[in-house]
């Protein structure tokens, strides 16, 4: 087996002790001591409540924590839960941990969990993020039940979000994935999702582990693999997604994980997405998603300034990536004042498609192409924030829907500029 080469002997021994399971909970960690305890308790409570008769295991894959995270995972006893919940598991709930390195690498962690799931013949698996501080026990049922009971192979989450949260998802990843792959999946790149052992084994055998990216955006690749493999997919509404503190410097890594992964997948999946027309809805348990409208102070001025200076400073880079018409239009709007500057949906879609085509042709270093998208995304974010400052939830949803349709409408343009495979 392929996994023999990277699973440690100690981890294999632990897996042998566990034996076959029905439910597997994957928990990748790295210095999450502050939150991991409550996450493990929520998992245990979720299993006691939703799957008391099933054989279950929590697998913690740690990227070299120095704050004792793995000890906290294995130290939380299920007995602590019982008096409070008055529930009893009829099977032993195992909790095991392994370390894969000294720095976090989501690809390695996910691969380890997939390999463990295959060895333990897990029927349904769920990946949870230790950073989700508001994780609820019912999340497990919501992500696992459609797989365990209803025959789905992938369950992606939908969340309650503020209208300005996750702009990279709403303005790029969701509309582009939907337009090209023809599936209405809101969160194709999510830290929490459920999947079947069948899908996990199929993905484990794919050649995605040795491309030198350290598995950046592996969750998105997994979703795309489920779509292209025609596995049954559904969505479950989980509730509020707690904001994780990020600095502005996180935008480029976020672009690598989303836009970079998607652009790379487009090259591989050309035969699939080039033949897709329209969009199929994906069954959703609960509401599609909820939009919060509470006031939020955002420095739009800074976004516009970074957009304008980025367009001016990176002209030589954009000349390699964008068509002269698109670049000229970007330069025009970047010189406009705060009140007039609008990065329209049409121009944004054309920009993203030209970036995707340039990425495929590798006109310059692929990573540089992704980095060059950051100032333009700030411009689009500025426009989105400005246009929806006082918008209602319905208006925001309509606007995102229009953007999705624009991505669909412009798909022939992407096919036109796409380099045919030699």
């Amino acid at each position, binding site marked *: 087996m392929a996994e023999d080469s990277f699973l440690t002997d100690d981890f294999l021994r632990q897996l042998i002790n566990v034996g076959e399971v029905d439910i597997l909970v994957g928990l990748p960690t790295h210095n999450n001591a502050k939150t991991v305890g409550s996450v493990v308790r929520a998992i245990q409570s979720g299993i006691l409540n939703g799957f008391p008769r099933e054989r279950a295991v929590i697998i913690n894959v740690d990227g070299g924590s120095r704050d004792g995270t793995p000890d906290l995972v294995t130290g939380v006893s299920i007995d602590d839960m019982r008096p409070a919940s008055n529930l009893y598991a009829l099977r032993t709930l195992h909790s095991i941990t392994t370390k894969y390195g000294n720095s976090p690498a989501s690809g390695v962690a996910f691969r380890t969990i997939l390999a463990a799931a295959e060895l333990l013949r897990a029927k349904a698996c769920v990946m949870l993020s230790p950073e989700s501080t508001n994780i609820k026990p019912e999340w497990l049922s919501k992500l696992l039940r459609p797989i365990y009971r209803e025959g789905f192979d992938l369950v992606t989450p939908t969340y309650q979000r503020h209208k300005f949260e996750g702009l990279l998802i709403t303005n790029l990843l969701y509309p582009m994935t939907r337009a090209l792959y023809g599936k209405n999946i809101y969160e194709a790149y999510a830290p929490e999702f459920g999947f079947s052992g069948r899908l996990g084994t199929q993905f484990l055998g794919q050649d995605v582990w040795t491309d030198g990216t350290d598995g950046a955006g592996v969750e998105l690749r997994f979703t795309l693999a489920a779509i292209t493999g025609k596995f049954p997919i559904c969505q479950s509404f989980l509730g509020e997604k707690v904001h994780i503190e*990020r600095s502005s*410097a996180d935008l480029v890594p976020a672009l690598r994980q989303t836009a970079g992964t998607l652009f790379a997948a487009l090259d591989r999946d050309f035969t699939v997405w080039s033949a897709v027309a329209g969009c199929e809805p994906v069954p959703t348990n609960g509401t599609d998603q909820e939009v919060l409208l509470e006031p939020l102070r955002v*420095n739009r001025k800074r*976004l516009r300034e970074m957009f304008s200076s*980025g367009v001016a400073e*990176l002209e030589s880079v954009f000349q390699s990536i964008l068509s002269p018409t698109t670049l000229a239009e970007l330069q025009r709007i970047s010189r406009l004042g705060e009140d007039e500057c609008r990065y329209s949906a049409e121009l944004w879609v054309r920009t993203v498609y030209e970036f995707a085509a340039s990425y495929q042709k590798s006109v310059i270093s692929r990573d540089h192409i992704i*980095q060059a998208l950051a100032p333009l995304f700030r411009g689009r974010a500025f426009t989105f924030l400005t246009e929806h400052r006082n918008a209602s939830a319905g208006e925001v949803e309509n606007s995102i829907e229009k953007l999705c349709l624009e991505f669909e409408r412009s798909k022939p343009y992407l096919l036109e500029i796409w380099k045919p495979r030699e």
Partner: protein
Amino acid sequence: MRDMIISELTQALHDIARSFAHFLPRFIVMLILALLGFVIAYVARAVLRSVLGLIKFDKLSEKAGASQLLSKAALPSATEVLSRFVFWVAWLGFILLGISVLGILGLQDEIARFFLFLPRLFVALFILFVGLLAASFFSRAALLAAVNANIPSPKVLSLAVRSIIIVFVLSVVFEELGLAEQTMLVAFGIAFGGLMFGLAIAFGIGGRDLARRLLEKQVVRGKKQENEDELSPL
């Protein structure tokens, strides 16, 4: 006396005829080598042009920034320049080989030196190309990083990175060619030292305000600034 003159003249004529008879076949061989060299060089140019076209050498050269340099100097594309260079080097090599067949004393040493120089020339050209590629890559990386980190004057930073790499590459190229090694070493030392000194002064004097702002930002953590950090992109 008359007989002696006639005899000397006859001897001289014989010598000339012998020399000519000795030289003519060598000259013919030289012409054949030159002609053969032309054909081989021509074929080599055509083959190289096709290979470079296949591997999209022009694109690579564009990425390296070599194409821009060539167009500024009103030269053709990188593929064309390299093909022509190989053609002339190959043909010149055959011509020099032909000349060496003539057996002209003194020239042979120069020709041997030329052939010994050729590998160094190719290595130097390779270093130059890779160096330009690296300069282009790292200057672009610096530009993008500076723009995304909102650092002032990103183009200056990018240009500084490019200049440092190009100066370093040129010094290595000249050393490889064995041209003015000492001069280049000293020039590189002065240029590099000057640049670093200049940067140190520039950051020391010009960056005082920036340093103060950074320190204030780190030390004085009062009310949270309103900025895009409050928005999660994912």
